[in-house]
């Protein structure tokens, strides 16, 4: 039996990537987002959907495989990154995996996400695991670097072995409504990525309105984003359910319009197992089960894994778990 990662990688590679399309501003202009109604849906959805017991365990296991296990700190060193990669390979204690009856699934996180300087360390640490390394790029997190440097940064990360690139958009383009400039920028990033998959970070906490979020989502998808991603984790407001709802609705509309599937990555602020279940329910309700799997869905998170481990240990033992029972990254 192929491991989970092998199978999902295979699915991803047989599915055609979103090639993008010429900028069609009518899609941008047609955007209508009613904030209050979106917030109501986002507030009631977690109250309408919940999973318990075996279902909850299975969903949390799924959530682990959707995680881009991330470290993006000024004090990252090769040592901390190697620890993170070890955790990525074995996110759950074997004992828990066995008692979940999930050994055959060989659950692993979806990717490890680091700064460019540490890509080579992560690539080496993950060798043989087939876990991709993702690099944040293009002047992460603020995106205020010169454009040529951004292109260079992407190329360097891809050359160092990154198979996924998380780029940040120039917020100024979105805030000033310069959609052509945003499109051109993201299109150029996509070309620079080559075979690497591109996640486009909108930094929604800095875009002001949900309508601008929806418009920027459309432009990035038209420019060829493989994923659209909420946040860098460095804005004062990061992933929220209302923002996510707006983005997944844009993904749905883009799919209905073009036939291409674009992935979604909420990042920043998702720390609890309960939150992870809410986001999975959002994906299931708005986009369907296909968008609950790592080829089309990721959590950008660092602390989330520990809480999920604790909940799964509780499920298999019946005892509430302590954080110190879970091996550190």
């Amino acid at each position: 039996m192929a491991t989970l990662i092998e199978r999902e990688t295979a699915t991803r590679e047989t599915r055609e990537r979103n090639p993008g399309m010429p900028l069609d501003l009518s899609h941008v202009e047609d955007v209508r987002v009613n904030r209050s109604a979106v917030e109501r849906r986002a507030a009631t959805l977690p109250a309408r959907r919940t999973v318990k017991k075996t279902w909850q365990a299975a969903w949390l296991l799924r959530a682990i495989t959707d995680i881009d296990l991330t470290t993006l700190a000024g004090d990252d060193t090769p040592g901390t990154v190697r620890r993170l990669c070890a955790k990525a390979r074995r996110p759950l204690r074997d004992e828990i995996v066995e008692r979940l009856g999930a050994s055959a699934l060989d659950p692993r996180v979806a990717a490890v996400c680091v700064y460019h300087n540490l890509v080579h360390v992560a690539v080496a640490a993950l060798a043989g695991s087939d876990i991709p390394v993702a690099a944040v790029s293009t002047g992460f997190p603020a995106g205020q670097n010169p454009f040529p440097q951004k292109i260079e940064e992407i190329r360097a990360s891809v050359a160092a072995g990154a198979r996924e690139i998380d780029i940040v958009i120039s917020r100024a383009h979105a805030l000033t409504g310069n959609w052509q400039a945003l499109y051109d920028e993201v299109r150029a990033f996509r070309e620079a990525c080559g075979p690497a998959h591109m996640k486009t970070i909108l930094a929604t906490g800095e875009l002001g309105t949900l309508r601008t979020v929806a418009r920027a989502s459309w432009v990035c998808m038209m420019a060829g984003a493989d994923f659209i991603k909420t946040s860098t984790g460095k804005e004062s407001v990061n992933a929220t359910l209302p923002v996510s709802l707006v983005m997944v609705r844009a993904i749905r509309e883009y799919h209905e319009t073009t036939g291409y599937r674009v992935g979604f990555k909420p990042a920043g602020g998702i720390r609890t197992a309960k939150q992870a279940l809410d986001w999975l329910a959002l994906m299931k309700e708005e986009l369907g089960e296909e968008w609950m799997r790592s080829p089309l869905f990721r959590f950008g998170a660092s602390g989330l894994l520990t809480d999920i481990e604790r909940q799964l240990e509780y499920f298999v033992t019946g005892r509430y778990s302590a954080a110190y029972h879970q091996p550190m990254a």
Partner: protein
Amino acid sequence: MTTPTIPTTTPTVAEIFETMSYGPAPESAQPAADWLDAHRPHLRLFIGGAWREPSSGEYFESVNPATNRPLIQVAKAGEADVDAAVAAARAAFPAWSALPGHARARYLYAIARQVQKHARLLAVLETMDNGKPIRETRDIDVPLLARHFSYYAGWAQLMARELPEMRPVGVVGQIIPWNFPLLMLAWKIAPALAAGNTVVLKPAGYTSITAVAFAELIEKIGLPPGVVNILTGDGRMGERIARHPDVDKVAFTGSTKVGRILRRATAGSGKKLSLELGGKSPFVVFDDADLDSAVEGVVDAIWFNQGQVCCAGSRLLVQESVADKLIAKLRARMEKLRVGDPLDKAVDIGAIVGPAQLETIERLVRTGVAEGARMWQPSWACPTEGCFYPPTLFTEVAPAATIAQTEIFGPVLVTLTFRTPAEAVALANNTAYGLAASVWSESVNQALDVARQLKAGTVWINSTNVFDASSGFGGYRESGFGREGGIEGLYEYLTPKWEMHEAHEAAETADAGETAAQANGANGRGRRQRATQAAPTAANGHGNGAHVEHAEPDGYDPVENPLLWPPIDRTPKQFIGGKQVRPDSGYSRGVYGPDGALVGEVGEGNRKDIRNAVEAARAAAGWADATAYNRAQILYYIAENLSTRADEFTGHIAAMTGRPSVDARAEVERSIERLFTYAAWADKYDGAIHSPPLRSMTLAVHEPVGALGLICPDEYPLLGFVSLVAPAIAMGNTVVAVPSERHPLAATDFYAVLETSDVPAGVVNIVTGPHDILADVLARHDDMDGVWYFGSAEGARMVEDASAGNMKRTWCGYGRPRAWMDAEQGEGREFLRAATQVKNIWVPVGE
């Protein structure tokens, strides 16, 4: 999507990891089951603070519609129980109403806290008894229940200072439906208690359990015995409560059919009545709406509580240009809805309340299909045990289809399309109902303009089915009258302090028309004194009343008093559509003075004159859109023109009534003053902006009732007429006024005043003739929105009975005396409230 039934074998983690399916998420029924067990063999009645077996000795089964299994036996109240409950409420009333507001506030606050402390038990019991999903009872019904008591605790606290002129009505009979058993109980009991009334409440037969659980909470907080009495039983007991002679006010929520029965049953009794009835509420989606959010709105509109919601957005009106897109999105969304065990936390749609309701839904859906509409249901199947019905969407529905007109009260949505905003409004208003509406558009101009034009008591912009105690809820048209929530809701349980209810007082002065000046004892004297002072003052002010000051009632000077000259024959006609027209009958009726002498003649109005007048009043509906400033200016102008003819009016009034000229003059001056009062009010009786606990403004807009029939009091031929017409038109209504039957000439003289005062044609129409015949035609006219009747008690009964046809708003004097000269009784907010209805427009904000 599959329905959430518990699988026979639980799949493994690995299997679910692949399917990512939902599993069961049951809310425990155990505490509720324990509660029921503790109450076996049956629930009892709560009368006078004690638990009693029903006098009938009979009980009936309450059934869980999700399982069709019995829950518990419930007491079936008999007639003796109704009498006992009303007597208990009556006995409790003096002390309860005399409590300081702060004391009542403490009780209501305690109820709110009890509800919060026992929230989950109430929610689970409600779900088991009614079949609605636990998500709704837990997140919506029970929190709103607590909120309502908390809100009205506030009014209890403030009432004495804020509404010093009002007093509680007395004993209130309340009959509530099965769709929101606890919430409707709160809407009824909270304002009634806050105002100082005592209550006899009857829950619906399907859903009695939580009312009993609630009674236990109020028992626990020590609410004085008899303040709230709970009678479980069948619909006949509801009617008996409504008919009980010692009940002063009846409040009902339920079907329009039963509302009509109650309107007729209480006609002429003088009981206050509020009715919250059915609906076929439009859900209007414009091409500039956030369509994905509108789809969620539809879910909340018609698949909330299985569509068993009086204000359910059951008619989807969508702009043609986006109709296909919206319907496709809607179908995709419907595939994701989950129907099943209402105690499952992840269920969207629970059980229909009972087999009879399920059969009604199935029958109407069959009718819809038979009439050619296109029916669509999601691919998944409903549970086969219990009363379940899948969400259902009809497209290609014509306005004439049965399912477009009839309230289905189930999870069935019908879709119609429109091309323009005007057509959307026309379709939306093409219904006998007017409870609620929802408007979806990202244009604030469009949304608010459409909201303004919709005939509905509540309009939700870019939202639906949101409720709050601060914002009144209730219908236009045949969705009933009265409001629940807000200060409007409090007024339903209050009456002016000056009003005397005792029948013998009314009887003593039943013939007040003859001796209006003496009517009403002390009030009459007070008015008389003020009147005699008023005339000279006013006369001096105008400088044209010299002869009045010198006038001697018993010694006419033929030179100064033109009434003694041979009169030029005058021919007052009907005043319809701004024109004087001959009466359809071709007959005239004599107007006689007190000595039997013929004073003049007026047209003998008949039903065709009324018909024409109503048409004219309808055609003048644009008056509602005239600016308030404009209406004020016209009222001032009427006053000005009346003033210049004061002598003429004085003379006619004196001649018709035989009252002293100085007294007649006082009536004229008071009429001028009253016109000023309503000119002043025209641009000041504003609505309010409520602050519900949402990021939303609720605009409580005072809108005119529409076309009003005004049957003017016989006494005070001019002032009685002005006292009704002026507030009505000040608020933007158009009127068909039937002036004093005995002394109509003051009103016919008024034609000339109206004609010279820039009153648009049709705003004021006047038909003279026999009161009760004309009132009957007006009350039966389905294009009249309201009738005010200030004639006899029997006439009031007749008017209220006949009004049930289209559930028009009535306001009757029941033959009781009213001191029209007195400002407290003859003018003010009571009149303005009758002339308006409140529309609450919810405007969520935020970009």
